[in-house]
């Protein structure tokens, strides 16, 4: 029973990371109707930025701020270089371009930084606290706290601010939004910046738990995508629930079934959902109208 509680905690912690990246997926999907396959690389790049800043001797908090500013910049470049020129094409060219961008980002970092995984210290000095039978790792606690805070922020931002409402209007009907005087290109730019920062945040938070490596981006992205399908594609709450569920499933799978195939569980769950409940837990938006 103690082990179960411990695994549950770890699973929710790692699931929170998937949820954050999944949220980035969903936001971009809702704004542009395409899936950004480079979303995971945002996490990876942010983790490397963080490592670079910390190695330069900057304080942790400053490194954190700089890394997120870097991600915002990357969001701008990504939008202008990859998405924006293709915005009037069908989804397939856009998908392929984002895959190209993902390969470009991952291998550029590899070329610059080499293949050795890097280590990033956690935010806190204290490694964790013992609560009854369960050991609560401080980094996991931080991840969970940040995820909760971000979910609340997200809700407030999209439902109660003018900017959030403009973003929603853009994602629902671009033509109508532009007729109402909303600058659609600005809204899409903001979406990319926000998603890049979200992805970056997830990468920085998870970096002390995993090694900082080139592969972390694609691994996280696949899990996050599986999470969005489990939750119901395009649904914000679904992405979060899906992410948490996947983290828990994977942690239990690794503990009770097999460690080397840990990364395979996401795929099995994904295929099971695609076959038996493709609309996910919360259902998906309706298909194209005739």
């Amino acid at each position: 029973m103690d082990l179960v509680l411990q695994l549950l905690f770890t699973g929710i912690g790692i699931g929170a990371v998937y949820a954050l990246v999944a949220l980035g997926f969903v936001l971009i999907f809702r704004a542009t109707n395409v899936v950004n396959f480079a979303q995971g690389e945002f996490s990876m790049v942010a983790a490397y930025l963080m490592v670079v800043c910390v190695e330069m001797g900057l304080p942790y908090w400053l490194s954190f701020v700089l890394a997120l500013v870097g991600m915002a910049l990357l969001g701008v470049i990504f939008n202008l270089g990859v998405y924006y020129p293709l915005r009037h094409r069908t989804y397939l060219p856009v998908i392929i371009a984002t895959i190209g961008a993902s390969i470009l980002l991952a291998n550029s970092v590899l070329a610059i930084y080499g293949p050795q995984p890097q280590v990033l210290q956690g935010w806190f000095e204290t490694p964790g606290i013992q609560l009854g039978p369960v050991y609560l790792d401080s980094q996991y606690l931080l991840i969970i706290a940040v995820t909760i805070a971000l979910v609340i922020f997200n809700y407030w931002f999209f439902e109660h601010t003018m900017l959030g409402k403009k973003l929603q209007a853009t994602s629902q009907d671009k033509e109508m939004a532009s007729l109402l005087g909303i600058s659609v290109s600005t809204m899409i730019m903001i979406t990319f910046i926000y998603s890049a920062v979200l992805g970056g945040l997830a990468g920085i938070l998870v970096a002390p738990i995993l090694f900082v490596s080139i592969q972390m981006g694609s691994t996280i992205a696949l899990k996050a995508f599986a999470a969005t399908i489990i939750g119901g594609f395009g649904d914000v709450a679904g992405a979060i629930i899906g992410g948490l569920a996947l983290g828990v499933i994977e942690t239990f799978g690794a503990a009770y079934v097999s460690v080397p195939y840990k990364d395979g569980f996401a795929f099995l769950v994904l295929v099971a959902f695609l076959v038996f409940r493709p609309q996910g837990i919360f259902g998906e938006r309706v298909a194209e109208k005739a």
Partner: protein
Amino acid sequence: MSVGSDNMPATAPAVSTRPAFVRHAPYFIAAAIVVALAASMQFDGYVLNILMQATTFSIAVFGLSVVLGLCGQINLAQAAFFGFGAYAVGIGTTDLQMNYWLCLVAGCLAALAAGAFLGMSTLRLGGHYLAMVTISFQQIVTLVMINAIWLTHGPDGVSRIGRPALFTTSQGYLAFCVAMLAIVGYLVWHLPDTKLGRAMRAVRDNELAAGVNGIDVFRTKVSAFAICAALGGLAGGLFAGGFAYVSPDQFSFAESIVFLTMSLLGGVASPIGSAIGTGLLILIPEWLRFLKSVPGLYLAIYGLFVILIIRFMPDGIWGFVAAALDKWRTKIKTSPATKTLQLKPAMVGGDIVLEVQGLAKHFGGLKAVDNVDIAVRRGGVHALIGPNGSGKTTTLNVLSGLYKATSGRILLDGVDITTMPPHQRTAAGLGRTFQNIRLFRSMTALENVEIGAERPGNTMIGAGGGAALTERAMEALTFVGLGSRANEPITSFSYGHQRLIEIARALASNPTLLLLDEPAAGLNSTEKLELHELLKRIAAQGLTILIIDHDMTLVSEAAQHITVLNFGRRIADGESMAVLRHPDVVSAYLGSE
């Protein structure tokens, strides 16, 4: 995603009467010469390896040209399927001491089965699902190759892989691979002109229109995906025999991206492009060896290539060349068909062709169509009218199967089609056009109409050979007055003419019932008169029409029977003039006092 320029239909009768093996003889002679060269020239080991790699990789990239170029679906796991074939030959010929040919076939079948399974679990959903699922699949296959040491020897890989007894020398084996390349290349090159190939192109251009023209969209996509996977498996099997050694890193996600880049660079629409792209991306890294000294650098450049190609040269190198060649080719004017189009709608049922009973379609709480009854009499024009938002187009979409009915029954000639998918309804005799025109935009007018003519169950095309299809399609185009422009691409037609092509596409299929969704919308007054004439000529041949339109002049003159909807309910039904004078109808259109 790109225009296939290699599919100009045979128009001059002199060409089409010569049998295929005579027309294609030059290709086989050239291929035989290349195979002989490969067998007899003395290459050093380095050149031999490069040629072996280029040959086997090309076959794998042909697979991508089928799935991505022809059918518009993505596959990011081609290296995994390549690995299926390679490991089948690797493990089979070493650990299991099996016959090479058996292993090669087994590898293809394993890849085919895996591809079909992946496709069937994913292809009903949108394209980004497929992208992610194939990436995940690729990762799993890599995991298994590394970790299932009892089967795959893990990271060490499999060495001392055997070759068939016929081709034990490297040179002989290369010649064999080149011969395989020539055969597969021939098949892929001619795939677009087969029934399956046409279906794939139609699905790529417009899935909804493909479905209502009798194409099983899902099966077509799964077929394309499975063919791609099988070609990957074949290529992998040949590769394993050629290099005698395989290890997991040769079949990683990075290799899938290399395959994708090869395909995009050369031009995804044609096997020539695939071969060009493959050759270039094998040779360029050899010339620029210093790039390989920095890990990641050359893949980073591939990534950049992908973005730039998609942006600036979406049809790849060959697409670019083919488009330039096309400008030089003179436009062949077609001569209109001499025979008039025969419409022989099936007459199996009774007096009522279409019977709709208690039909309802609810979107959540919204009752778009609610308990509607319609009975369409054989041989007449029946109009379905109503103000905007009254549920007309929703009704039509439920009739043609694009939406599932919430409740109710639809009988076509006595056959219950309520639960059939769109392509089966079309096979049962339903034809339709769309309010917002849905033609296959990368094809010519003739090719569009041929797809209509190819409807399963069309009795007017005999056995359904290419010549019969072309003849039927030409008759249909001539019937709507566009016979002389059959070979022009869709984009060169005016809006009104595109509508006519859509009608011709439906007519070519010889339907039992023709559904027209606002055919007069967006037409000018001359075009409307022509449309009216056309409807009369169609009705004169006994084909039943169910038409939706807002043009009351057209409706009142053309239709004998009118059903009126408002807010999803039927408010009037009967003989035209009586219905139009019905007080409820007048108030629905003009408001009541």
